[in-house]
């Protein structure tokens, strides 16, 4: 499979990049929410929340770029996917509302703090599950007629989409646990280590299950992965997953601070690359290609100017914000 370099492909990579940055950055935020019920002590919860309080808003902005950028660069795909994923998207938005306001509300009340802790955990879980389900629903294919979605409003619900939903929850939880390993100390960090082990094995199970199930969805996926000569390009992906896993196990065994988190991100990157291999060149699998969905050239060029200047700038000042709040978060120096 050779990939031509044209505007639609460039934009497909830009959108994929935005979504990936979102998954990486909001992934650990959401993961912390998923793990929240496992840390019942108030002091631990304060530290967990403070470890992302200064950056969660920027992390979530990548989701807006993914959605807005898709409407701009591939309006047809946006207008087909959103109604097709209606229920998971609405569920995700509602989950993100609860999770987002909890960051502020939790500190404004003592009586109702428990309520916002539940909102934080429940919202994070709901948003993560909904995102994973949406991903599965896209992969399994969407009923399109003309320029419209032509299915029902429960088409997204299948065993496969539930599997991808659960898989993403596990993956985000792993990111959250390894983030805590990196950002906290003492007993809290020890608990995060324990959770990281369990979640890593769960994540490997999930990657395996999704990898086995995907080729059965469409014969095209099978050919993409296993037909000669594609296999030359696809075989390195599972091999790399195995290599990263070994490193990650070693990092956890040696109780490293940073490695577990960044290697978990690498696992995500490889899974994401696998997803790209399965989908390309479709943006709505098996019905709409990136060229069919692409905006007119002048829209894509107009935005390309902005993106090429602004994304590096955004990455730079985002990195600065992370740098300002670097290091371990301690209970007594919480930001709130």
């Amino acid at each position: 499979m050779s990939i031509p370099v044209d505007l639609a492909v460039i934009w497909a990579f830009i959108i994929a990049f935005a979504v990936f940055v979102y998954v990486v950055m909001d992934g650990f935020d959401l993961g912390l929410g998923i793990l929240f019920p496992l840390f019942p002590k108030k002091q631990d919860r304060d530290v967990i929340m403070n470890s992302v309080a200064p950056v969660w808003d920027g992390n979530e902005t990548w989701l807006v770029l993914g959605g807005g950028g898709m409407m701009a660069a591939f309006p047809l795909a946006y207008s087909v996917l959103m109604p097709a994923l209606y229920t998971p998207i609405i569920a995700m938005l509602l989950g993100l509302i609860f999770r987002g306001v909890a960051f502020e509300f939790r500190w404004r009340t003592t009586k109702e703090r428990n309520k916002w802790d539940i909102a934080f955990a429940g919202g994070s879980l709901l948003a993560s599950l909904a995102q994973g389900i949406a991903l599965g629903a896209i992969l399994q294919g969407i009923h399109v007629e003309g320029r419209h979605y032509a299915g029902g409003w429960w088409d997204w619900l299948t065993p496969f989409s539930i599997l991808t939903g659960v898989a993403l929850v596990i993956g985000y939880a792993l990111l959250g646990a390894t983030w805590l390993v990196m950002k906290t100390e003492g007993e809290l960090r020890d608990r995060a280590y324990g959770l990281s082990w369990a979640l890593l094995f769960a994540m490997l199970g999930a990657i395996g299950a999704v990898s086995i199930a995907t080729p059965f969805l469409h014969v095209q996926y099978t050919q993409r992965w296993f037909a000669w000569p594609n296999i030359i390009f696809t075989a390195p992906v599972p091999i790399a997953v195995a290599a990263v896993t070994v490193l990650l196990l070693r990092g956890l065994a040696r109780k490293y601070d940073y490695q577990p988190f960044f290697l978990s991100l690498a696992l995500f990157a490889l899974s994401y690359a696998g997803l790209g291999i399965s989908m390309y060149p479709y943006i709505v699998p098996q019905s709409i290609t990136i060229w069919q969905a692409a905006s007119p050239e002048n829209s894509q060029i107009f935005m390309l100017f902005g993106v090429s200047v602004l994304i590096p700038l955004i990455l730079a000042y985002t990195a600065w914000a992370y740098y300002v709040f670097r290091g371990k978060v301690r209970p007594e120096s919480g930001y709130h």
Partner: protein
Amino acid sequence: MFEGWDAVVLARAQFAFTMSFHIVFPAFSIGLASYLAVLEALWLWTGREVFINLFNYWLKIFAVAFGMGVVSGIVMSYQFGTNWAVFADKTGPIIGPLMAYEVLTAFFLEAGFLGVMLFGLKRVGPRLHFLATLMVAIGTLISAFWILSANSWMQTPTGYSVNAAGQYVAADWLEVIFNPSFPYRLVHMVLAAYLTTAFVVGAVGAFHLLRDPHQAGARVMFSMAMWMATIVAPIQILAGDQHGLNTLEHQPVKIMAMEGHFESHKDGAPLYLFGWPNQAAGKLEYAVGIPKLGSVILKHSPDAPMAGLDTVPRENWPPVVFPFWSFRIMVGMGLLMAGLGLLSLLMRIRGNLYDSRLLHWFAVAMAPSGFIAVLAGWITTETGRQPYLVYGLLRTADSASPLAAPAVASSLIAFVIVYFAVYAAGVTYLLRLMAAAPHHGEEGPSKDAPARAAGITPAAGAVTGAIR
């Protein structure tokens, strides 16, 4: 359930509901971000403690309001696709890039520097911290620029062509961005945001002055807010008038609806103050009007003829009662705002600014005036361009997603329940923060540094920053 309902009506109800809840927060945070930048600049410049106390006081309020604006805003950016798929497909090539630029130039700037603004004063020192505050304030204004450009293009589309797939495509990006109604709408909205914030700040100041006329923070914020009311409210009335003339030129039907002009007036149109628009009968009932004044205001000539809705096919009429009444509510609020500004100027000249209980009660009562005016103004402009979504090009009825009514109804109910629960809590927390008076040693959202706000001067802060 809901099988017999019209999915388009439900989708419109959902958009109106989520939009109305959303818009009040940006309207407030655009103004508040700029106010915070001013307060921090004054602190750096004068070193007076009262400014950093006020800064930290309003920063806590900003954090809550901004968070609510962010989460309700994400809903908006996905709703174009979930509920208005045909609109997204057809206008995506034009609206999409404008919103993408909003995300790239504004949302990231705000979000990227927000963490430092809220929690980072001790970590980066006052100067870099001021830069972060400034970036957040500028971000909110850039955001207003792009989203109002997109909205204005939907009101007065220019610089486009239509491609083979039936999509609107930019022929000239500058004409798209700087479409005819954009400059007027931008000025009107940004001033509205500033006024909204000023009247909240003024009300909070007045509330604490009623309790203690010597409260230092309350005096400063009340005085600053009243200067805004005195100066900006009249400017806003002027800007609104210009915006109206622009609308008359590009969307005359909207003006007919706002004015209640069902009938054409050959020699001078009246200005109707009140009345009840009867859409079915095509007339304004119980009308109270001033002869010729409508033509004077809109055409600057008492005898200028003005066409009415009787010159427009009925299927192109907006639902007159909405723009007619919301317009009157907005104008009423504007006049009250200017009135408070004038009264405060009189009291200031007489030296009673901080002791006039009448003035303070008036200011407290005016706390929600900005929000009411903003909502009313948006209802005027959005219902006034109906039945179109993109004026003259794309009808609202033809823009919706191919969804079953039960799907839209369920999500609408979910949004209503969640918004009422979440926003009731949020507004409670905001009011609680406002009910406490700003005090000596006021802390920000961060309890990072117990001693920070208490006594440090900008210079000492700079030293602390350098040491870290």
